[in-house]
């Protein structure tokens, strides 16, 4: 539990430091187009990786959890229908919850 607290505080410090960096560093440092592009693309790579890992992995083994995948599929449909963020999340969780409650998946 102490480990989680350390993780929380280090993450908070790191995130704040990054926000402050942009406000205080001289413009030249981050003006390289490749650096800018990297910072633009990093969230996409990491978030896509998180979607994949949290959907298909259980620790170090790859697994398929039908309820979870159904929930994710429901999220995709909600996104295609341009649903707001919270609706997407609730639809995804609700789908998985209902399938599990019914014992279907």
């Amino acid at each position, binding site marked *: *539990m102490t*480990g*989680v607290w350390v*993780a*929380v505080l*280090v*993450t*908070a410090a790191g*995130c704040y430091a*990054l*926000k*402050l*960096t*942009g*406000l*205080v*560093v001289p*413009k030249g440092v*981050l003006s390289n*187009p*490749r*650096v*800018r*592009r*990297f*910072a*633009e*693309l*990093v*969230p*996409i*790579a*990491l*978030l*896509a*990786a*998180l*979607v*994949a*890992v*949290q959907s*298909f*992995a259980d*620790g*170090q083994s*790859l697994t398929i959890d039908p*309820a979870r995948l159904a*929930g*994710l599929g429901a*999220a995709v449909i909600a*996104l295609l229908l341009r649903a707001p*963020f*919270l609706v*997407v*999340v609730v*639809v*995804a969780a609700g*789908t*998985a*919850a209902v399938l599990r409650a019914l014992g279907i998946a």
Partner: protein
Amino acid sequence: MQRARVRPVRDGVALGLAVGVSGVAFGAAAVGSGMTVAQACVLSLLAFTGASQFALAGAVAGGAGLIGGVAGAILLGSRNALYGLRLADLLPWRGVRKLIAAHGVIDETTAVTLAQPDVAAARLGFLATFVTIYLTWNLTTLLGAFGAGRLGSPQSLGIDVVGPAAFLALIWPRLRAGRTERAVGLAGAAIALATTPFLPTGMPVILAAAAAVAGALISPQPDSSRPDSPRPDSLQPEVP
């Protein structure tokens, strides 16, 4: 109030309320992953950037990969440094005020600030968005964290799907931005899955950053001539 002052405040409060309530999803996901209510709330108060917070919650659920989880969460916050760069000239505060303003440099405040016609409106828009999202996000984090603990087991509520669904919703508008974005997303997911059996938990996600390096080297310019920050009129829902 003058007309020129109404718009930035209205933009900021509207977006802040709409996005801020997503804190309930984070609070639920955090407690569902094994964090305490206090840890979820402190993270919302002090980190205050949604993607990083969801990422850390996911790492806590994974168990062993806290170091990788922290590294991934911080790496996800790197875009805020670029936002700060864009906002530096518009937010001319000094000293303690600058230190406080820095905490508010996130997707939504950047979008509202850059959309204003002049510096005075930009500052007002920044403040309105920052204050509204900060209050709403932290309040709803508390509600979500409490609610998740009371209502039942995280698995039966489908809370294990909240993280992936939230991440997908976050990158959705970016995936639609261009071919490079989609390729980087797919490559990142593939790298993470391919290395999961061989690396400690959390590391595969860090390694996925290689896809962003490749994308930046191959395609240093955005595919279309779109602005490099989200605008409110085209803004898809995102969390801070």
